[in-house]
């Protein structure tokens, strides 16, 4: 019951967030100077042409009517039509978002796979050589601009060594797998095409390292600090006293407890990765949301910008819900207390 209540509350909150985000984005889009109709028509167009385009887009209606129209369409699952690409915004988001999500998830996986062991080792070998190495790596990760790292990796692995491709999701001439999830790695495996899978994997390596490296440091530092707290607790000493091996205590007792505060960080990290992917996408010509949103903002394409903002807010709320559920899985006591 408690679980259902929480779910109900969160879903109600989700609707409120979407409404709030749509209202704020709509207001901002219409407050900034600039005329999307003029941008489409071109500078040299006569006022009659601009007026015609403004009318076609419904931009000549009073603001409240425009907003009402937008929300009505939104309730029917229609995010409107992009002013710039002339395609439905939903279609554009479906085309670009899976690429961003695939990259963000790959980077998150890298951050976890490297960051968690690094954090654990740093805590266990506190202030020893391995801790110093991990700290240096974490600080470097946090302070390295993705732009710089990405270009450096391209120059080395594409320019000099020719081991990995320099841009895009697949080699020129290869057709993407049939879209099921939108993730090339998964879709190519589902299609049974290992050649395509490895090609997509090759393309994913450098962007993943670039994007993941920054968050790897964050994850490692978070795990280290949580582990240090746990390792100082009485139950650890008790467990050791019972004769459990050092690593059994660390991995079976200390780590699960240290993971609870870290789950929050990991959840928010995914949000950061989705947002931070913009720069990485630019460097690697990764066809994700980054370039699409930046171009949309420059073109005052407010249906596209609003569609993106609503989608991201949706994801943030869902992520937070997922984190709450994860808490319960890691430590069932949390659900009982609530």
């Amino acid at each position, binding site marked *: 019951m408690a679980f259902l209540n929480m779910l109900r509350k969160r879903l109600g909150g989700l609707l409120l967030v979407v409404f709030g985000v749509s209202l704020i984005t709509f207001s901002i889009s219409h407050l*900034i*100077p600039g005329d999307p109709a003029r941008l489409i028509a071109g500078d040299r167009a006569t006022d009659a042409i601009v007026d015609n385009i403004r009318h076609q887009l419904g931009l000549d209606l009073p603001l409240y009517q425009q907003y009402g129209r937008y929300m009505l369409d939104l309730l029917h699952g229609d995010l409107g039509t992009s002013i710039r690409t002339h395609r439905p915004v939903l279609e554009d988001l479906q085309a670009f978002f899976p690429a961003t999500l695939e990259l963000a998830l790959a980077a998150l996986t890298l951050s976890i796979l490297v960051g968690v062991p690094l954090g654990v080792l740093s805590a266990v070998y506190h202030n020893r050589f391995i801790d110093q190495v991990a700290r240096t790596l974490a600080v470097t990760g946090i302070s390295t601009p993705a732009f710089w790292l990405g270009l450096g990796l391209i120059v080395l692995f594409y320019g000099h060594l020719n081991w990995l491709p320099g841009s895009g999701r697949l080699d020129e001439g290869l*057709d993407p797998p049939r879209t099921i999830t939108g993730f090339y790695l998964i879709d190519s495996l589902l299609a049974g095409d290992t050649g395509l899978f490895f090609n997509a994997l*090759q393309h994913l390596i450098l962007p993943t390292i670039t994007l993941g490296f920054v968050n790897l440091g964050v994850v490692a530092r978070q795990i280290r600090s949580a582990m240090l707290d746990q390792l100082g607790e009485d139950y650890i000493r008790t467990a050791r006293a019972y004769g459990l091996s050092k690593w059994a205590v660390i991995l079976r007792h200390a780590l699960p407890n240290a993971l609870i505060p870290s789950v929050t960080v990991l959840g928010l990290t995914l949000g950061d990765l989705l947002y931070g992917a913009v720069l990485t996408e630019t460097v690697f010509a990764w*066809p994700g949301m980054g370039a699409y949103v930046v171009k949309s903002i*420059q073109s005052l394409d407010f249906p596209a910008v609003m569609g993106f903002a609503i989608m991201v807010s949706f994801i943030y709320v869902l992520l937070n819900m997922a984190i709450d559920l994860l808490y319960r899985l890691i430590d069932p006591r949390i659900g009982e207390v609530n």
Partner: protein
Amino acid sequence: MKSIFTPSTLAMALLCTAMGLGAWQSASAAVPQDTLMIGKPSDPQTLDPAVTIDNNDWTVTYPAYQRLVTYKVENGKGSTEVAGELASSWTTSADSLTWEFKLKPGNTFDDGAEVNAEAVKFSFDRVMKLKQGPSGAFPDDMAVSVVDPLTVRFTLKAPYAPFLSTLAHNGAAIINPDVAKKAEGADAYLSNHTAGSGAFKLVNWQKGQALTMEQNSYYAGPKPTLKKVVVKIISEASVRRLQLEHGDLDIIEDMPEDQLEALAKKSGIVVGDYPSLRVTLLYLNTQKAPMNNPDARRAIVESLDYDGIINGILKGKAKPLNGPIPQGMWAYDEKLPAFKQDMDKAKADLAKVSPKVSNLTFMYSDKDPNWEPIGLTLQAGLQPLGVNLKLEKLANASMRERLGTGDFDIAIGSWSPDFADPYMFMNFFFDSKLKGLAGNRSFYDNPAVDKLIRESASTNDMAKRTELYQQAQKIVLNDSVYAYLYQKAYTLPMSEKVKGYVFNPMLEQVFNVGTITK
């Protein structure tokens, strides 16, 4: 604790690694000789010729469609004169109001359908009905009628001298009328596909990644040497450069000056400089004090360090202007002297302005990185004259809004012609009906000039038109309506393997892929 390194997991890991190595290939395979790879920073917005006004989209649309006329190529160079493309000949009535075009027989669209007068009518009616940006190139009272299957007639209400040139514009593309039968509707279909009779057709568009064009097997012209043209979208300039150096791209667009210098030194790469008709000028707001005083405007024009701007900021990749019509466009007056900095004259002219000018603003945006240093140059030029120039940087959309309403003293901008006629400069820059963003960005209003330029636009006699435009030029130069800074070269780095590229100043970002070889 149970180890994960059991014999079975190790064997599994080895197997996966072996499979991986087997499938792993070199990072890049050489681009086939019959494929041209073009790298550009942004994805096209729409491929509908009746909607797009962006040259970035024309890279795909121009070779996919044909038009009634096309720009001539003379000695491997693009010309501002037109020749028939789909049209074999044309006639004009004595009053220049009726134009009749005979179509060449045997031209077909990429699905095998015939290109006929109905298709021409369909295409132009669609442009005028949609009333989007490209419709502005044509007279809005134009009527198109079918005389017979291979003859089409255009009827205008008023004479429009540049009419023939406008038919080579991207918006004048002849579209297959069968698109009307597409399930999603013609407009939706054409924004994502091509349906023309050009040498190439679009076969695949992976949004944000690449557009692939292949030969149109029904193309009636000479068979192209290239089989495939791929436009790759790579937003980061240094990555485009690296891929060109690596041989994965053949041509790259939109490179910053410093990268061009480095590229020019690389073997196997040619950085071509082509004389463009893109001009950069300062808009001097003739409706707002103190710039409404011609002496104040003259002082601005005289205080500018033209040589410093061209050689220092543009690194010599531009030519000075001597008036509104750039070199390379007919009606250009070579007798006019180029502008030069003259601080004594500037001081004298400024002294005539009352009340004394002490503060001015210079409005610019982030659209062109050269605009800020140009503003600083002007600021340095005005400082000894006792004028404090405030630099005001805006987002491009905001700057356009302010340009449209005339809310500035001095602003900077670039202009390039859509069709090969001095009308694009003289009428757009000075006609009082086109004040604001449309063209007359200095808000100039002079009935004598209006009369001259409008008369020039309504006659087909080229000698008379040139004379009228040159008369108007003298007046507007004396009035210092704009400060004409430079005519920039169009720079394009490409692999030395690419042969036969023809630059046309009206068609920046368009490649003659039908005749390019590799």
